[in-house]
């Protein structure tokens, strides 16, 4: 499967008369976009705003971040099984508005989290302070159930991203990158001497506000399966996950997974990157056993030499991570784990809720308990009040002057467990 990813660099975003990309600026026709994403009777109001890098703007509580993409050639469309037919995606040509993002916000539950600061110290912790953001604030009808609210906001965000992506369909990309994975047997013939490496991609799938979708299927209902890495780049996996802002994977991260990106960089040189094994993180131990049995079985079946395993979320997925690690290691396959840490404010406590001696190569995305101070911003998009009641916030987090003292876990994407951030730890 071969995908040409055409990157159109977006350096600015403005509302304008026509939705188009011109000289690196994405112009957005507000009315047309509202027409495109409106019509859901569960929402009384949809408001649009813009947040650019360097501005004194705070967005909160953030639900999802989505990158505008469009299929230019090849089967299917963006977000298959949700916005497009369920064709297998990941081949042909896709254009992306690199540097633009849709950010959705709305108070789905009272304790909801997720902050993006566009400048100041908080901006350093989130990749979405560097994107030109179209922010969508959704207000639900009264007494709308939380899962309905989440669904409504999720769909609005995806539709908005797909609408903006269309603006790049006929634009010549500034840069084209080609990604290719051969069918398994052909890959073996092509790289007979190279070690076989796969990526075990763990998806958060525990229930309300903790869900991920694969080709439109709720991933808690899947057994682990194989995917071409380029399928992710066309939005085959998307987020319905609102909890644990710092280490959940927004939809933006699923299409820009740095583990996949980096494995491709050395594919065919140092190893043969054979593909991605997706798996879930369910709440029952039987589901955890079944899914980790299957990841190990698939890894063995593919005759792998090594896997990289990434986690999503906190606490009970640590058990899934360790089960995957232990069972794959027992097959004689090397593992490297990527996680983040809840190691207390001083970073000295036990980082994970589970451990195993097989986990002897672990990369961290940072300590989510670290306390940070975020100065007041001139403008807030969304709602500031949840600052006191978000994960990592606490009574008095929100000071009268609008500044916030809280744990790093309040910031969207701060301790990404797929490495879509800058934090880590090194042992000297």
């Amino acid at each position, binding site marked *: 499967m071969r995908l040409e990813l055409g990157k159109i660099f977006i350096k600015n975003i403005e509302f304008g008369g026509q939705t188009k990309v011109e000289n690196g600026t994405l112009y957005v026709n507000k009315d047309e976009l509202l027409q495109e994403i409106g019509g859901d009777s569960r929402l009384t109001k949809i408001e649009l705003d813009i947040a650019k890098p360097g501005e004194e703007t705070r967005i909160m509580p953030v639900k999802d971040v989505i990158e505008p993409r469009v299929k230019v050639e090849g089967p299917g469309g963006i977000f298959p099984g949700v916005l497009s037919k369920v064709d297998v995606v990941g081949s042909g040509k896709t254009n992306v508005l690199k540097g633009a993002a849709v950010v959705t916000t709305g108070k789905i*539950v009272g304790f909801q989290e997720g902050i993006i600061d566009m400048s100041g110290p908080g901006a350093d912790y989130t990749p979405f302070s560097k994107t030109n953001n179209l922010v969508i604030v959704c207000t639900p009808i009264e007494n709308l159930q*939380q899962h309905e609210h989440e669904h409504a906001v999720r769909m609005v965000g995806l539709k908005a991203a797909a609408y903006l992506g269309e603006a790049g369909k006929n634009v010549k990309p500034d840069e084209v990158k080609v990604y290719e994975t051969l069918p398994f047997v052909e890959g073996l013939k092509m790289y007979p001497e190279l070690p076989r490496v796969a990526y075990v991609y763990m998806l958060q799938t525990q229930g309300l506000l903790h869900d991920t979708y694969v080709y439109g299927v709720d991933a808690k209902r899947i057994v682990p399966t194989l995917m071409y890495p380029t399928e992710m780049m066309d939005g085959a996996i998307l987020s319905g996950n609102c909890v644990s802002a710092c280490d959940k994977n927004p939809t933006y991260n699923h299409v820009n997974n740095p583990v996949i990106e980096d494995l491709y960089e050395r594919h065919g040189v140092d190893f043969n990157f054979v593909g991605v094994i997706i798996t879930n993180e369910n709440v029952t131990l039987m589901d955890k056993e079944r899914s980790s049995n299957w990841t190990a079985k698939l890894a063995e079946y593919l005759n792998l030499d090594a896997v990289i395993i990434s986690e999503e979320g906190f606490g009970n997925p640590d058990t899934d991570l360790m089960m995957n690690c232990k069972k794959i290691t027992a097959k004689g396959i090397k593992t490297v784990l990527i996680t983040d840490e*809840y190691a207390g404010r001083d970073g000295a406590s036990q980082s994970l809720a589970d451990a195993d001696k097989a986990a002897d190569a672990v990369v961290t995305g940072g300590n989510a308990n670290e306390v940070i101070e975020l100065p007041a911003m001139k403008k807030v998009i969304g709602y500031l009040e949840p600052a006191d009641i978000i994960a990592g916030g606490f009574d008095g987090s929100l000071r009268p002057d609008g500044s916030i003292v809280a744990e790093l876990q309040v910031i969207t994407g701060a301790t990404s467990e797929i490495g879509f951030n800058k934090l880590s730890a090194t042992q000297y």
Partner: protein
Amino acid sequence: MAMNNKYLIITNNPSVWESYNSKFCTEFVEGAYIDVLVKVRNKIHEGSQLITHPLMGSVKPNETPYRSIILQNGSNTDMQSVEIIESSIESCLRFQKDRPTPNWSDKVLKDFQFVDIRLFESAISSLPDII
């Protein structure tokens, strides 16, 4: 649905108690998240086995006051359950030490109850012998 005696539910979430105490053996804990975990640990030492992970959900143990855990009745101590409940208790105490659960407003408490029951129901729906 007839009363199911295979499973045991330990919860401090009034919504779970109200919806499920007539369908499953359910013990309501008048106490905090940690008290639910300790009760579950006792049950495990008496021979029950964990069905759900005690830290299910990404809502932190010093954030949500509610916890509902499903056990399977039994008579032999299951070592995997012992290890998981011990490390879960350790995690919970660590979070509480750094920052205890705040006194939430009623609306926020209702939302925490709702998320807890939905996670719980996600577990119930994956039990093979429950329709």
